[in-house]
């Protein structure tokens, strides 16, 4: 028997496979398809203090081996999340990580405080890829100081598992990573989507109503993997890899390059059973190579 269990910053996961935020809903739909035993954690769709409508359609456009989305952070807001979604999630034996977002550092803090008052939340993932409303709208995550500010705001009220999710739309991801580490994050997840665009040449309109959206899926895997590797070498806290993982081999690339766990996003849309299949693929890989423990692979890249 091989072991897929991992422990990140004190949080124990049955497998190193988390469902990435925004691609697994609030867990209800896909949990049964995947099976709780295959799922390290569920990261729910990004939650804000107040409900958000999201962007007008079209919100999705396919690109070569990729997906552009401009969902625009539609969500039910923290109160309805706690009332309507959390009870279902609590019933399953899978850690629930809440992805949070806000317009200001204070909003992030208030959100963390509110979530700290309820049971059944294993940790927070802070999405710092959102526009920093107080500073002209560039995303928090593109500046080390703003990234640190948000991290500190959350840390000040949330003593538990705190993962900060980095945006790839930066010149030097390690600079942001170090700032977030210093500000008290327990671990880092990366990458969020890469900003992209597509045009319909028949209508000459952008394929997304919002013009620009976030690129995800296999297309961005090499970018994500590079950033995970760079970040892993730059910080001491664990790194969780996200971006384009659709198969066990993809997940293994990230683990070998330094990720302590990974998140599966777009692949859940393509195949609701993706995480189950990836978990099985990991078991097969370990078994066929007589590797007893998935942790032996983490950071095992041979240069």
């Amino acid at each position, binding site marked *: 028997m091989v072991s897929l269990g991992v422990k990140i910053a004190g949080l124990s996961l049955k497998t190193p496979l988390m469902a990435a935020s925004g691609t697994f809903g609030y867990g209800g739909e896909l949990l049964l398809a995947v099976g709780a035993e295959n799922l390290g954690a569920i990261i729910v*769709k990004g939650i804000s203090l107040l409900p958000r409508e999201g962007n007008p359609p079209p919100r*999705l456009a396919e690109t070569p081996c990729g997906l552009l989305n401009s969902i625009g952070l539609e969500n039910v807001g923290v109160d309805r999340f706690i009332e309507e979604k959390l009870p279902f999630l609590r019933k399953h034996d899978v850690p629930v990580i809440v992805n949070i977002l806000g317009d200001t550092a204070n909003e992030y803090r208030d959100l963390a405080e509110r979530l700290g008052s309820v049971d059944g939340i294993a940790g927070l993932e802070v999405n710092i890829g959102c526009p920093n409303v107080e500073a002209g709208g560039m995303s928090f995550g593109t500046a080390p100081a703003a990234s640190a500010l948000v991290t500190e705001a959350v840390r000040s009220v949330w003593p538990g598992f705190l993962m900060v999710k980095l945006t790839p739309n930066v010149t030097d991801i390690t600079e942001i990573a170090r700032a977030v580490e210093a500000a008290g994050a327990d671990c880092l997840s990366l990458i969020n989507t890469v900003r992209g665009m597509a045009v319909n040449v028949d209508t000459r309109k952008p394929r997304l109503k919002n013009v620009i959206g976030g690129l995800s899926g296999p297309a961005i895997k090499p970018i994500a993997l590079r950033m995970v590797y760079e970040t892993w070498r730059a910080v001491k806290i664990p790194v969780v890899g996200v971006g384009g993982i659709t198969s066990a081999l993809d997940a293994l690339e990230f683990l070998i390059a330094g990720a302590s766990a990974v998140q599966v996003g777009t692949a859940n849309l393509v195949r609701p059973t993706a995480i189950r299949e990836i978990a099985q693929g990991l078991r097969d890989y370990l078994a066929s190579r007589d590797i007893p423990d998935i942790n032996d692979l983490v950071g095992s890249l041979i240069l």
Partner: protein
Amino acid sequence: MSARAYINAEVVKNLELAEGAYHLVVDAGSGMEPARPGQFVMVRPKEGLDPLLSRPFSIHEFEPRRMEILYRVVGRGTGLLARLAPGQTLSLMGPLGRGFDTTNEKVLLVAGGIGVAPFLFLARRLYEQGNSPHLLFGAKTKEELVRVEELSEFCAETVVVTEDGSRGEKGLVTEYLEAAIAKNGVQKVYGCGPVPMIRAALRIIESHGVPFFVSLEEVMGCGVGVCLGCAVPRADEGYLHLCKDGPVLDAREVKW
């Protein structure tokens, strides 16, 4: 087996009925749960990541194991679909979404072009309940009036309209809608077709105070409610999500 998984289906038939319009019949084995008229399936090639997303199609006809869709080639995904030969396999997930309400009322079906797809299954179901619907089917030319013979078998009356007058009445379906509603004492209208047709139809139908339910389209990511990609603006505020709240929606609930 849960409906939240792709199953392999074998192509039984994949026939071009008119230029660019295909009729696909697959053997879905025992993995597909019974469908209701108006529901849809997500279809993808059995292998590969490009195209990445599955494509949604209304269920054109359904019997246990046997699932049919009617589709028009408009891009890459449908282009690949058109090249599948009998014996080859594809992946599909479904039935998904909420279909048409099939309680016994006097129903008028209004179809535009390939929008006729969901109505065969629906008409047969209504017919079997002893409640044959009326059908108003519009297209550009007579070639586009696909599957009209099969459909009219289950309909109390079939009016076809072509823009070029090559078959049936000449003009737009909307010009014949008024009469169809009034004459038959229609209690409910179901529509599927291009958005401009639906919009025009809505104005007429509303003026008769008759409920109008439409099967809509939007780009879909997952088909199962997790990605929030398939947003349709609500009449008041916020969005409906077509794959869960639809694809059949009350036209008055939607912002047009």
